[in-house]
């Protein structure tokens, strides 16, 4: 990046070593060692962008993997993430990370309902390092907040982050709202698919795989300006069948009905304690959320990917995924009047019977 960057190979090793040390501190819940490690690396002249993206982001990726493999709990994942966030905050205050804005202004935000703020925070810090003036709005930004912020600031673009696929309808609402007031949107995060297909489907001006590509894309030139489009709402014509609306509206009743019927279809459930029952209900609610999202996007792959991933996670937790096929069958029975939903649920069942262990992406 900078002219004084040391040769590549030792640098890589050094970054790996640093990531290892940061991981140890994060895993031990040791905030002070974590921030100290990061600050010392900067004192030693390491490029802040490398520290952000090749050390902190790497460690965060490992936190996610550990959680998916059931080696740490949700609370531990949260603890690790908050220590990583403290490390980012410490880095941002270090003299090496001080820059004077000389480019435009970018608003960075997470979609409403999105709690994973760290990826967006990394984007915000990288953009600051590269000379942008950045407004970082943080996790879970309701669209009205985002829009009123844009009205007062005149950002050149919005960088919108979402990691959970079920937030895609909310992301779509935010994208169209930004575009309606003339601000182009760059999206990123696991929710938009490994190839960014949902970013295109939802009409974002650009998509980036990570903070570095996001910064590169914004540096490459202004994003195309969205034009007012009277045909707005025509990009997802399948929504006209109202299946998405009906499933979302009736979600609670649907989950309750299927939950009660599941006890008959899956006798092992009768032996569950309260926590296990609540867990099962949560899993059902999750399946319905993914089904609704698949209906919104009319994308069967989103649902089958989630089902394969759930089966994988359940196995990793030592829970046999036997309750999944009856749950899908019961959902299909309840939704028999919704042809798209029935089709998507059938695909989900097929995924389970073909059964290839697919460690998927949704989080």
């Amino acid at each position, binding site marked *: 990046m900078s002219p004084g960057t040391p040769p590549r190979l030792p640098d890589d090793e050094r970054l790996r070593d640093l990531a290892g040390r940061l991981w140890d501190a994060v895993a031990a819940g040791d905030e002070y060692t974590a921030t100290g490690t990061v600050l010392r690396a900067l004192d030693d002249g390491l490029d802040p962008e490398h520290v952000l993206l090749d050390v902190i982001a790497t460690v965060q990726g490992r936190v996610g993997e550990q959680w998916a493999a059931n080696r740490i709990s949700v609370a531990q994942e949260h603890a690790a993430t908050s220590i990583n966030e403290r490390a980012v905050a410490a880095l941002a205050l270090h003299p090496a990370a001080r820059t004077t804005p000389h480019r435009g202004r970018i608003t960075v935000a997470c979609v409403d309902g999105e709690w994973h703020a760290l990826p967006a925070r990394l984007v915000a810090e990288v953009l600051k390092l590269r000379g942008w003036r950045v407004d970082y709005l943080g*996790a879970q930004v309701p669209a009205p907040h985002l829009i009123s912020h844009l009205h007062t600031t005149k950002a050149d673009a919005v960088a919108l982050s979402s990691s959970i696929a079920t937030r895609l309808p909310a992301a779509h609402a935010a994208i169209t709202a930004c575009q309606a007031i003339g601000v182009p949107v760059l999206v990123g995060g696991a929710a938009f698919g490994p190839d960014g297909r949902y970013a295109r489907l939802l009409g974002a001006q650009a998509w980036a795989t990570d903070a570095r590509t996001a910064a590169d894309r914004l540096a490459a030139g202004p994003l195309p300006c969205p034009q007012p489009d009277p045909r707005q709402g025509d990009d997802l014509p399948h929504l006209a069948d109202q299946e998405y609306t009906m499933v979302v509206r009736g979600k609670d009743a649907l989950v309750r009905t299927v939950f009660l019927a599941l006890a008959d279809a899956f006798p092992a459930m009768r032996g569950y304690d309260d926590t296990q029952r609540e867990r099962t209900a949560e899993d059902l609610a999750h399946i319905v959320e993914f089904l609704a999202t698949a209906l919104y996007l009319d994308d069967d792959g989103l649902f089958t990917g989630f089902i394969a991933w759930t089966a994988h996670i359940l196995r990793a937790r030592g829970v046999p995924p036997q309750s999944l096929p009856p749950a899908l069958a019961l959902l299909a029975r309840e939704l028999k009047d919704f042809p798209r939903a029935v089709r998507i649920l059938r695909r989900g069942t097929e995924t389970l019977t073909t059964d290839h262990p697919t460690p998927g992406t949704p989080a």
Partner: protein
Amino acid sequence: MVSTRAQTAADPEPDFPWGGAPCPVLVADPAGRVVRCNDAAQALLPGARPGSRLADAVPAWLAAAHQAVCLPGPRTAGEPDAPWSGMIEARRLRAHPSVRQDGAVAWWLVDDTDHHLAREALRTERERTAFLARTSSTLLSSLNLERCMDVTAQLAAESLADAALAIAPARGRRLPVVTCLRGAAPTSALEAVDADEVPGLGEALRGFPPVPSRWIDPAAAPAWLIPEDFGPVGAIVVTPLPGHGVPAGALVLLRKEGGAAFTEEEEVFARLFAARAGAAMSAARLYAEQRAITEVLMRELLPPVLHQITGVDLAGSYRPSSDHERIGGDFYDVHPATAAGEPSLVTLGDVCGKGLEAAVLTGKIRNTLHALLPLADDHQRILTLLNTALLNAHTTRFATLVLASVARHGDAVRVRLTSAGHPSPLIVRADGTVEEADTRGTLVGALPDVRARTTTVTLAPGESCVLYTDGITEAQGGPLGDAFYGEERLKRALAGCAGMPAEGIVEHVQMLASQWLGSRGHDDMAVVAISAPRSPHRDAGHDRTPGGCAA
């Protein structure tokens, strides 16, 4: 009757009965020679005599049309009606061919001038309407003044002039100017210039007296008015942007030397455009002013950002009931100790009701508590005085709150807690045990007397005390949509938070409550965590490990 008269006046030849017809008729043979002309055609095309070459006698478009009709080969149906048209003298004519038995073609020339003019006018009008519609929808969508100026300059440069400047009323002594050249991106600048240097601009920016568009002499225009690389200027017009009671700004249009001058119609059109741009820019200005007022008033009501104070980790998080608001009826505050060794006061509370009215009362309570700080150690006294203040405040609202006096003792943190009608704070021990703080009391602002029992808890390093409002425990939702999040679930969740930094705990609790809710409505939700840091005591800002970082 017309045909009878035409026939009597016509040439006796039966194959050319149109000699006196009012519409010009010209017959030409396949070889491209004129065979016959009627009187009207003769008058229109004096060179068209029988035997003369068509190419010499008629305009090229008609000669070409003849050639096309005479071309051998199959003819598609409808071709005889193909719209051949062109100019003859100052008139536009449509030529309709009819092919005779012998291959000669009779050309009927119909005057189309008025029709054509009407069509042209319609097309221009349609383009302008479409442009104005686009202008409106683009400008209406934004409430940002700079963006409105950008759009105004860009659209004007696209359709009205070679370059356009949108100028807003002066901000201080500088004039915000957005310049846009046709086909380029708008650039904005703050010009330290005097608007009155440009005739008509001062009035336009003041919005008074009302002035019409004004032509100015390009030679007299100051340099800042002419964009770089524009070249010689042919014409400059300054048009005021009419605001709604507030001056909106001015639009300056520039055309290059040698280009078309502004017609009267174009000037009218520019004024229609200016009316839209002015409306949008004044709305954006009003919005910005209102927004600035709200911002200032709100600043006092927003919960503060918490961080470490004198060796105690603090974190707070607030989620108002409505997505449209940033404030509500829950509040928290931290008053750092004024002297070393003294405790700091942390407060968290909940005013009955939600929304702006409740938020205003939280502001009063926070101010009152601030004024009572000298009594910070005497929780009972603070509550009594606050109660009296609220009872006298002519408000029917009441509040619940927790007072926490926090001080560091060695590695541990001692917290004195008093709850006034508020859910008891929860203590997260290092081993994951979650205890309820033993404090109870009456709410404030409702009864003449308040009574509360204070308790003291000691937090070992890594342990936390969590204050929360009932928005968390009364969050209704869950997988089946019908259950409260409840104290038991909160305790279970906190059991997993042992050793977590304060910030992590607060975010974790807010996330779980939010996931429990899904997209359902909720009350204001506030959480504050007070933690004893796990590492040896260090002041905020110097939190760097002293050597020996684990490798």
